[in-house]
């Protein structure tokens, strides 16, 4: 009589990596919907393109390394990476930009380290930063929000802009681009303008942050809160990151409101919300202990502010995440929870 003899526990909560990733994808939906609403179909096309490229790259590398392909293709992690990367790209960025970035993220950022679970850096952010430093021109031409445009872009228009580099009416893509709110603010501050002045004079600013950007951030916030509710992510990272960013922004806002934007502006601008709930929380590359997560995410919050306020780049989320990714193993080592029955150190 032969019985099956694996070890205990003999039951399982029936969760899976796929389920976790699927939930992340669901949680992205409100933000993406707002994004598409404000910036047109380009966003959707980018996401789709990135997903396809990510899956193809992932499959190809796994195949080349003779690893099982199917479990990893279907785990959804590559799709999450692709979606987050695509969300960070300018809405009408040319197709090859998305392709290069995604391929870099998946092949170098993830698979070179052994694939799922082993990458020390956030692959999506690696892809983004690589693109930013290699193709700064393309990466800084943001599409203007739809409401600031004379001509609304349809699906076909967006596709033709992305794949052919031009619009049907023969308009250059430049006609649809403008600097993003953070970029505008940064450039104008360099020209010795005051914050209130900049915000009053540029049409791109809304009530708290950039027009449209506020709503998109709201969408990601909702999705993120749902993720916390579903226990896909813990509250530590978003809370610490947003808290740190808010605090430091408030301090400098109080010191000099002319050259420093309001903390609320920082919270709803750029990739703050997306970063706090979806990017900094990437479990693989973040700190894995709860005390460590607090330190890690607070570090991100502070670095985001430092780079935004004094650095050369308008938004610092990607860099801040990568920089703190570097520290994650060290943080994990030094910030461990107290073990049951041990004294507090």
């Amino acid at each position: 009589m032969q019985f099956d003899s694996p070890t205990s526990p003999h039951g399982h909560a029936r969760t899976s990596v796929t389920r976790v990733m699927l939930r992340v994808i669901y949680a992205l939906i409100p933000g993406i919907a707002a994004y598409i609403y404000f910036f047109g179909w380009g966003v959707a096309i980018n996401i789709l393109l990135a997903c396809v490229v990510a899956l193809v790259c992932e499959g190809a590398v796994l195949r080349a390394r003779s690893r099982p392909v199917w479990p990893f293709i279907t785990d959804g992690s590559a799709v999450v990476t692709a979606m987050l990367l695509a969300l960070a790209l300018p809405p009408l960025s040319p197709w090859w930009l998305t392709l290069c970035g995604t391929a870099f993220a998946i092949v170098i950022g993830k698979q070179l380290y052994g694939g799922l679970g082993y990458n020390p850096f956030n692959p999506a952010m690696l892809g983004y930063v690589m693109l930013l430093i290699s193709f700064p021109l393309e990466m800084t031409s943001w599409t203007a929000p739809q409401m600031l445009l004379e001509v609304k872009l349809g699906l076909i228009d967006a596709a033709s802009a992305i794949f052919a580099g031009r619009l049907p009416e023969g308009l250059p893509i430049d006609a649809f681009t403008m600097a993003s709110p953070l970029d505008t603010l940064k450039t104008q501050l360099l020209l010795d303008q005051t914050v209130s002045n900049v915000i009053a004079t540029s049409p791109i600013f809304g009530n708290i942050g950039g027009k449209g950007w506020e709503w998109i951030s709201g969408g990601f916030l909702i999705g993120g809160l749902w993720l916390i509710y579903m226990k896909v992510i813990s509250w530590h990272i978003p809370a610490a990151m947003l808290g740190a960013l808010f605090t430091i922004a408030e301090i400098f806002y109080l010191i000099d409101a002319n050259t420093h934007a309001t903390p609320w502006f920082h919270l709803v601008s750029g990739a703050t919300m997306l970063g706090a709930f979806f990017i900094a929380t990437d479990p693989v590359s973040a700190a894995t202990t709860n005390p460590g997560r607090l330190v890690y995410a607070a570090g991100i919050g502070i670095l985001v502010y430092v780079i935004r306020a004094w650095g050369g780049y308008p938004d610092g989320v990607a860099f801040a995440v990568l920089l703190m990714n570097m520290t994650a193993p060290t943080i994990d080592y030094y910030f461990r929870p107290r073990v049951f029955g041990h004294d507090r150190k």
Partner: protein
Amino acid sequence: MLAAVLSLGVMSVVFGLLLGFAAVRFKVEGDPLVDKIDAILPQTQCGQCGYPGCRPYATAIASGAADINQCPPGGEAGILALADLLGRDPKPLNPENGQVKEKMVAAIDEPRCIGCTLCIQACPVDAILGAAKQMHTVIEQECTGCDLCVAPCPVDCISMVPIAQTIDSWRWPAPEKARIAGSYR
């Protein structure tokens, strides 16, 4: 030119003198490294590494005369520990020194033993009991499984046998790697 030669010459002389002085004043004796290496070696004393026992091999490693991959009984774990200690890159066991084998103990087929004492002389850890012309036995707990007593026996009554596993000595194996989709080849 003269200024150059002079100033640097003087400087070097001064530095040389200081270093020479320091070498005498701050002289340090002994090398604790050998002990550390010896502590890692398995003490099987089998000589497969090419040295007459573990300590000579440890001395040879410390002096740079031997590589870290020459001890088969130590296995991969031993090489890794040595690499860690010495800050070197681990490398696979040198096949010239033998292969990793399961640990065995010597067993004397006692009725056949003629009491020649040759095995006693071969055993590096005095794990064989017996006297001349009397039957010999191996103290199983003391035997390191070095194999050295097998060859000298004139009647081939010594054989190496695997150590039997009991419920007390059984330990959980690592999970099968086949189950792990993303594991090493």
